[in-house]
């Protein structure tokens, strides 16, 4: 009888969880659409920028590269391999098929 009771309890809980998952899916779609509306709004687009000092304030003392690229641009980071003298080689490869990529060097010095 305990197993029977547990079975009923589980079925009810699963129904409840299914409903909650549906609600979550719906809410995610809403928020995604809302973000799209806000970011593509012509009144907001000209104001969607950060200043150089904003970025420098987030990454103190680092050399920074700001990359602006068309949607879908592929960024590949090969797994670093040790070359001579145990020096690892780190690379970033950017490839666009739609338009040019802009890279800005922000050197805080």
């Amino acid at each position, binding site marked *: 009888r305990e197993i029977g009771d547990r079975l009923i309890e589980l079925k009810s809980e699963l129904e409840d969880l299914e409903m909650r998952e549906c609600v979550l899916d719906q809410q*995610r779609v809403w928020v995604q659409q809302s973000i799209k509306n*806000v970011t593509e709004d012509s009144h907001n687009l000209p*104001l969607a920028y*950060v200043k150089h000092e904003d970025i420098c304030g987030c990454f103190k003392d680092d050399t920074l*590269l700001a990359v602006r690229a068309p949607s879908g641009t592929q960024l590949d980071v090969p797994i670093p391999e040790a070359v001579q003298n145990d020096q690892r080689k780190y690379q970033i490869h950017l490839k666009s098929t739609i338009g040019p990529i802009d890279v800005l060097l922000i050197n805080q010095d």
Partner: protein
Amino acid sequence: AQECQNLEVERQRRLERIKQKQGQLQELILQQIAFKRLVQRNRAAEQHAGRAPPPNSVINLPFIIVNTSKRTVIDCSISNDKFEYLFNFDNMFEIHDDIEVLKRMGMACGLEAGRCSPEDLKEARALVPKALEPYVTEMATGPITNVYMTGA
């Protein structure tokens, strides 16, 4: 008993999926709040200054940032049409997207860390649809942990 065990497994799977989806929703909510606050800040600054900042002093969204030590030597090769870049670094680097930068700037009201003042919470709640306000309230004190149910 076998059916009970199967349902237990299913229950666990669903709970994991719901937890993951709540995390994704949390991230989307942060994005919306951060973006709106950025636009508000810039609008207020431009109105105060009476003009927009010079174009070469700002970076428009979306962007990504690559950061590395200032001692790193970076070698850059660019194709003629600028469709392709290859960077070689002699040291480690990190890559962050614009939303991460906005969070570090404080544009997400501290919600990403679960630390949000009452004033910032009030402002953050006003930037999302009413149905999502309970999420924002809960994020103010930590990540969403309860399986939260709001009206569809």
